[in-house]
């Protein structure tokens, strides 16, 4: 698929999943198709990231993926085995029913060419008591302007792992990225996934970032995800969670600090297909300037999925009259015996709290930083590996306020 066709197709889709996205700019943008970035520039950047991770001992494995291929010289891999699976060339029938979601799928297949499969190795010696969490960092680097990566992570039965997925954006100022990341959790596995982005100074108004992530949970599984959202000009992250086995839980967190003219579209889809599963969503956004955020959380409960518990919360703090936050909780419940709650708020920093702190001699700026620290903190509770990210959010806030 040509980039120009991609632009056209995405633009023409007016289905509900895309209703809040403004693609008029994408349609007009021009992207040259040849790679421009010198990889050596990126390599030094990656080396710095790896050095930093090493010194803080945050990860056991580091998988560096450059344009869809694992770079063996940069990676340090002990607990993961790597495989590739070629995509069959698509038949390209059914043009008429093509939605932009399927455009994302087909262009991803075409652009990535193959799926990268990461199998977490089974730790056969350890029992449930001695099981240790494997901490893997994925660094995804794209050199080309329209880059797609398709990654499948397999987490075996009873395994415990955390995956920190860092996408390093291209140095060029305009690009389209269209990645897909699937995690399959076998029974009784525990997985945590953190989505991070490393932006560039030059990342400007013509960068488009699409990510579809999918997690399939077996029986008795635990999933935690954290999406650290940033200031990129256009991001759409669709995160789908499928409960395939009973007695599993998924807790999804997101934190966004948007300070420029940015658009963030988060689409969560949680499918409670079986009994006794619990899901929660806590997505917090702070909007400055002309930020535009859509949060859409769809929870579907199938017939027979009794005992489902689902909770969704989406507090937004808006600091500018030009910023917009749309929250769209959606429930599709086909079973009686379920409990689903949702709550979205759009507001400002609580004036009374601010006055209280100021009345004790704390400056307005410090008071705001402290209150926002309180606002963001609980998102990180389950992610001790993200201390650094938490700190950089606070630093960022200190700079803006």
């Amino acid at each position, binding site marked *: 698929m040509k980039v120009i066709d991609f632009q056209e197709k995405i633009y023409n889709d007016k289905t509900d999943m895309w209703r809040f996205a403004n693609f008029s700019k994408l349609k007009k943008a021009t992207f040259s198709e040849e790679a421009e970035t010198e990889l050596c520039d990126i390599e030094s950047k990656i080396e710095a990231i790896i050095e930093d991770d090493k010194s803080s001992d945050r990860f056991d494995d580091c998988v560096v993926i450059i344009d869809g291929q694992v770079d063996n010289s940069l990676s340090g891999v002990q607990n993961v085995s790597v495989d590739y699976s070629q995509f069959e060339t698509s038949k390209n029938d059914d043009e008429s029913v093509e939605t932009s979601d399927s455009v994302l799928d087909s262009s991803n297949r075409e652009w990535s060419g193959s799926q990268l499969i990461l199998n977490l190795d089974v730790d056969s010696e350890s029992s449930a008591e001695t099981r240790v969490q494997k901490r893997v960092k994925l660094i995804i680097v794209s050199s080309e302007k329209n880059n797609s990566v398709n990654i499948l992570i397999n987490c075996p039965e009873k395994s415990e792992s955390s995956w920190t997925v860092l996408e390093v954006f291209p140095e060029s100022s305009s690009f389209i990225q269209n990645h897909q990341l699937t995690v399959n959790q076998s029974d009784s596995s525990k997985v945590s996934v953190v989505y991070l982005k490393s932006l560039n100074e030059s990342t400007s108004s013509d960068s488009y970032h699409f990510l579809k992530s999918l997690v399939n949970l077996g029986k008795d599984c635990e999933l935690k995800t954290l999406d650290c959202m940033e200031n990129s000009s256009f991001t759409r992250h669709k995160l789908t969670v499928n409960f395939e086995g009973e007695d599993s839980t998924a807790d999804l967190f997101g934190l966004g600090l948007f300070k420029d003219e940015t658009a963030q579209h988060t689409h969560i889809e949680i499918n409670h297909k079986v009994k006794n599963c619990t899901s929660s969503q806590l997505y917090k956004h702070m909007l400055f300037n002309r930020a535009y955020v859509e949060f859409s959380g769809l929870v579907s409960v199938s017939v027979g999925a009794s005992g489902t518990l689902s909770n969704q919360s989406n507090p937004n703090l808006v600091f500018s009259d030009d910023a917009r936050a749309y929250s769209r909780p959606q429930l599709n419940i086909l079973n009686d015996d379920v409990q689903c709650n949702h709550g979205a708020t759009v507001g400002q920093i609580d004036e009374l709290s601010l006055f209280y*702190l*100021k009345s004790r001699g704390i400056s307005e700026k410090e008071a705001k930083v402290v209150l926002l620290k309180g606002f963001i903190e609980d998102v990180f509770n389950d992610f001790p590996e993200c201390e650094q990210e938490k700190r950089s959010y606070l630093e960022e806030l200190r700079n803006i306020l």
Partner: protein
Amino acid sequence: MLEIKNVFASINGVQILKGTNLTIKPGEVHAVMGPNGSGKSTLSKLVSGHPDVEIESGDILLNGESILDDDPDIRALKGVFMAFQYPVEVPGVQNGSFLRMAYNAKRKFQGLDEVDPMDFEELIQEKLKWVGMNEKFLDRPLNQGFSGGEKKRNEILQLAVLEPTLSILDETDSGLDIDALRTVSEAVNKMINKDRSFLVITHYQRLLNHIVPDVVHIFSEGQIIKTGDKSLALEVEEKGYDWLLQPVS
């Protein structure tokens, strides 16, 4: 220390303070009593710089200088402290670190270095004892889930740590049990000296048995309508406000 000069002020467009005058000298303890809704809390909010209170005319002087243009944090740094009638719950902000932050803000204002954490620990332990609070309250979010009385103690803990020169206690006694009332009053009494002034708002004479005022004011409809010594409080306790509120023909 504090001079409130003929202040007219409103909240949400409704005039609440209607020509309030009050002068407190260093070292003095003043009590303000008055019916519900008469504007006592509005007066304390006015002095501390609450954004809801809009001043229409008049002036407030602290040590001879107007503080009308000062933000609440600056007023606090200059020595004003209001113990809230309804302390605010601030989730996500730890009580202990908040106290240290406020303490350091004051030190910075005075041109001093940040306090050594060990020294602060020592200080805070002493002040906790003063107000009879357990140190576990330091780890909790600021006022969140505190009982009514615990919140009031926490206000006085802050007062004891920050050592303001002008303290306004807005109904600190309400919500405190009998023993707590004594403990907290003793803490306040320890603070009283010739350089510090207190404005104590209360409905009950009982508090004034512990914290003995030099001057008692009766507040009604946004004005001080009578001023006397501590016997005035006893008189009000006995007779209520009606006799004072009768229009003089």
